[in-house]
């Protein structure tokens, strides 16, 4: 039997607050973190909204590497990591370095380093172009900066599988713990707001002009965002031995690839369905066991329709009974951090018996005919929560968290 892995700490930096409590309260209250973009001029764009973290302050959190010495996605990850350790009741000074690892996901890594590269080149300042690029740009720096900051030398990995990356990273960390290669893992995702990402989604016509309305009939698109979330994972027996608060247990996961289109989902939801089925089988569950689904739910007309098809394909008659919500309605799409933040939400859902709503939901869409938890958080018994994430490249990742019954 494989080692049981549990979630004992939660840390997040988001447009709706820093730390588990601020974020969770905001999500349950149905607040929105979306506002006009401030990090670059959107004057030449037809859309202007983003889910940026305004006034992000890493003071007092980046101790060893030094504030300002690393890029924004690394800073977000470090702050989320330290918050997660505090939340787990662990002293960052007393970690067992060789048995503590880091597993992170991202879509873009540190894209602002490429942007700086280009700004300098266009400004005609060639002698400065590329300085610091190798130390700061490649996406693996997010995981290595976090490990160096915490002085931990256990398994260290960066999995840049775009918008499903957080789930991949948590799955990897779970495997490392189950295999006994580590006793503690910090796992999650981080992405910083980027003009490159914004430009791309704007060009695709995928950004909503006014608000993000997943599954609503009049939904007009997604809203790019940023953030980081990290979960502290450890084997059940270690968590119990130290008397840790246990939020949830990782029940299982499933991965698949559409192999259909780089930016659009499979028209029948085939790949997404295979990931969900695989996650259910890995967890030893039947579709009827799932009490809550955290949707990918970007708010684009196509994603939400195809995601609904995929859920119905797997859950059949049970589909209409399962509450499904998208916190992207409030945070926007935080890219590689999204499924990590959503895993944090699932951990809180199973531990507290509350689920966040899909906000801005006004008019049901006949093609999206499931229970999307419109506008109001709910108190329900959640034994098993499924977190679905889909990405460019046709990557699908479903993770199941369960209430930990020791």
């Amino acid at each position: 039997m494989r080692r049981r892995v549990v979630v004992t700490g939660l840390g997040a930096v988001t447009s709706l607050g820093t730390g588990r409590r601020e974020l969770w309260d905001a999500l349950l209250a149905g607040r929105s973190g979306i506002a006009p973009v401030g990090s670059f001029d959107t004057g030449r764009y037809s859309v202007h909204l983003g889910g940026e973290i305004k006034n992000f302050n890493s003071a007092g959190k980046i101790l060893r590497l030094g504030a300002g010495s690393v890029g924004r996605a690394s800073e977000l990850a470090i702050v989320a990591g330290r918050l997660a350790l505090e939340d787990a009741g662990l002293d960052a000074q007393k970690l067992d370095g060789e048995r503590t690892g880091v597993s992170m996901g991202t879509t873009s890594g540190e894209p602002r380093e490429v942007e700086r590269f280009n700004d300098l080149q266009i400004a005609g300042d060639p002698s400065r172009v590329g300085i610091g690029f190798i130390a700061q740009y490649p996406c693996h720096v997010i995981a290595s900066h976090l490990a160096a900051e915490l002085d931990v030398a256990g398994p260290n990995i960066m999995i840049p599988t775009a918008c499903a990356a957080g789930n991949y990273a948590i799955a990897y960390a779970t495997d490392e713990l189950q295999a006994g290669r580590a006793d503690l893992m910090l796992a999650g995702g981080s992405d910083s707001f980027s003009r490159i990402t914004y430009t791309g989604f704007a060009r695709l016509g995928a950004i909503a002009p006014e608000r993000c309305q997943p599954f609503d009939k009049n939904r007009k698109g997604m809203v790019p965002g940023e953030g980081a979330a990290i979960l502290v994972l450890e084997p059940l027996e270690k968590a119990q031995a130290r008397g840790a608060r246990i939020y949830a247990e990782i029940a299982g996961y499933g991965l698949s690839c559409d192999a259909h289109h780089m930016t659009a989902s499979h028209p029948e939801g085939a790949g997404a369905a295979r990931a969900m089925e695989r996650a259910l089988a890995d967890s030893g569950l039947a579709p009827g066991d799932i009490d809550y689904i955290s949707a990918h739910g970007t708010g684009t007309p196509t994603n939400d329709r195809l995601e609904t098809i995929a859920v119905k394909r797997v859950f059949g008659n049970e589909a209409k009974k399962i509450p499904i919500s998208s916190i992207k309605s409030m945070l926007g799409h935080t890219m590689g951090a999204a499924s990590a933040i959503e895993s944090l939400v699932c951990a809180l859902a199973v531990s507290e018996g509350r689920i966040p709503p899909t906000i801005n939901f006004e008019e049901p869409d006949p093609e999206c005919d499931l229970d999307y938890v419109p506008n109001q958080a709910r108190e329900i018994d959640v034994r098993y929560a499924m977190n679905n994430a889909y990405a460019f490249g046709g990557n699908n990742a479903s993770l199941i968290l369960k209430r930990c019954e020791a």
Partner: protein
Amino acid sequence: MASRIVVTGMGLLSALGDSPERFHGSLCEGASAAGPVSLFSPEGFAAQLAGEIRDFDPRAYLGEKNFRPLDRTSRLVASAAQLALADSGWTAEMRAAQEVALVLGTMFCSVHTISEFDRRALTAGPSYVSPLDFANTVINAAAGQTAIWHQLRGMNSTIAAGSASGLRAIGYALEQMRTGRVTTALAGGAEELSFEGFCGFDRAELLARGSQVGPGFAAPFDKSHGGFFLGEGAALLMLEEAGAANARGAKILAEIRGFGSAFDRSRGADEKSGAEAIRRAMQSALDDAGSTSNQIDGVIASAGGGAADHSEALALQSVFGGQDRFPCVTSVKSATGEALGASGAFSVIALLESMRTGRLPGIARLTTPDETLPPGTISSRSREISLRSGIVNSIGLDGNCASLVVTAPERAS
């Protein structure tokens, strides 16, 4: 009992050949990919040379198709995948019936596409960028494009660990297969030679300077530590569970026996800390394989001509130093250059070909060998060697260390 994972096919695109046999032959001849760059101008940089694949044409591997959606990295990976699938006899019909996973290691993936996309938005305006290019700005673009091209519907993952990316990808696939999540996988790595990468490495003063490939130039384990030159390419292994591979009568090229990784907290800044992390990676790969260090006949090292080579020499000494027979050690990087994400998979293919042919490539241009290694351990020339069991090391610049233990296929009795 954990399942055994074997290699049933290889595919590579390199500046030294597009088949494992030609690649290994070039390595043994002491050839070098270092040469002038045509993809961009190196004017103004201290380094002038790189290991570019000249005249790379994906049509030679993938036929007359529309390649516009694929950038250079994706074309290299899709081509290498074609070669690996063909080598293992894994047909389109088989792919339709059974999922094949893909795990790709890369440091930058499509950094040039990403950068050009941003530059176009800045200069022409945000509405003039191409949606096709945007699809390639994600770091998993090459893995996604290759999955679409070859209908690989299994788990699809991208691993970024600098120069250790390719080996980490193989290790990740190995673990997914051992736990039964994946039965068949393409795993390896890729990197394109990009202006952005070249510029960054040159500014970081990590590249070998000048335009002459003389003695000691970018020579692994050479005391001159003059830096490496950048290479490029893609290399993928077809991995299958041994029972399934035997059942379908596949040719078995090698067995992947064990993998280990470790992180150097000093991220290369401290020689001893670096050496200790490399030692840990090697030892955990040996443990994972159920092997002991005296069973290892040969090592394909990560060394490429930079200062980190000495840490690797120290680690080799600490793993093998106490035994009667020190394994033969070599590196492919005086020939291939530092191909970043592709390096680890290049090294594995070099090891497999060395096992098959009984000849281990030398380290071209080695002039003043690091004396940490016992005399005769490294050589500037290729050597005849009986190689049954080997280790491949891959060490990133950012603290990521990885090792893989591979054994030759069991001889038919």
